[in-house]
């Protein structure tokens, strides 16, 4: 299952979620402003709090909105 780390006011987080929805891809959404645990997990994965961070395994991730990389991630799911 794909997980997106983001927060509500982040335009590229919203775009990433909309893209996954447009592709019919199910995902977990974790808000780093509402959950300290989600923020810590996001930071562990990417080393930073810049979002969106999209991941499947918590190791490989896509930072920001990158359609090509998201497509590769979706294909590997």
């Amino acid at each position, binding site marked *: 299952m794909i997980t997106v780390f983001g927060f509500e006011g982040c*335009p*590229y987080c919203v775009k990433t979620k909309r893209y996954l929805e447009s592709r019919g891809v199910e995902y977990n959404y974790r808000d780093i402003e509402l959950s300290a645990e989600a923020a810590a997990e996001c930071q562990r994965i990417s080393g930073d709090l810049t979002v969106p961070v999209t991941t499947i395994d918590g190791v490989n991730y896509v930072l920001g909105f990158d*359609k090509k990389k998201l497509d590769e991630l979706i294909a590997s799911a």
Partner: protein
Amino acid sequence: MKERIHKDVVIIGAGMAGLTAALYCGRMNLDTLVLENAIIGGQIANATDIENFPGLASVSGKDLISALQRQTESFGAVIDEFDEIERVTLKTSPKIVETQEKIYEADAVIIASGMNRRKIPLAEGRKFETRGVHYCELCDGHAYAGKIVAVMGGGNAAVDAANFLTKYAEKIYLIHRSELRADEVSQKRLFANKKITVMLQTEIKALRGDKRLEEIEIFDKVSGVTKVIAVDGIFVNIGVEPNTKLFSDELTLSASGRIVAGEDCRTEIAGVFAAGDVREKEIRQLTTAASDGTTAALLAEKYLSKLHG
């Protein structure tokens, strides 16, 4: 093989100008597609508090654009924010807008591709991008809760960014190479906030750090003193550049890289209009972008009426 699709109007860019044009085109029953390569709303999507849009005392860019998007879509215009434009051919009839997935044949094209923030002109800028160097306060400001940040620039966007970042950061340096150009209301807020230190006539000379930005070297042009200050991040607000790369082979661009078109938004190619910040003009405001979108849509409809007899 890419699918070929005909449209009455293709609008390039979903900022204020593009969405307004789409709203008018939709209301005139034109088959309208809006293509956006980045964020719906463009630059304005990042604005935290808009206080100069008539009729709205205070509104966030996100709320204003969401309302406009809903209004636009309710009149039939379709917005695609995922299928990126690869190339355009404007001098043919129909005009061709080729995306990653499709080829659109459009009778009229409205270019409202807006602007991008100018990148920091320092070699280390790229190295630290998203690792301390940022171009979106709204997106990345939250990562600096309790930390020290700098804002580079002296216009409205920079001053508003510094004011916004006080929500998170413990200390903010606003650093600008000359005098502030921001409006009085924003400057008043800036100087009233104890978290912000304003450093004018000061140039940022270097960015330093190991894996991420740790400090910046600044030069005080008045005293001639160079010093280093520790910062966790820097938000760059040193102006914008027009998004005109796709059109530079076919349309005349001004010295600043904007599309040359009159107040009627008509370019040198019949059926091609330029609207909003991407058009060369003296005043670029949210209201003038809406005005351009309106003009371009109405004149595009006139053009199409003549074209179709």
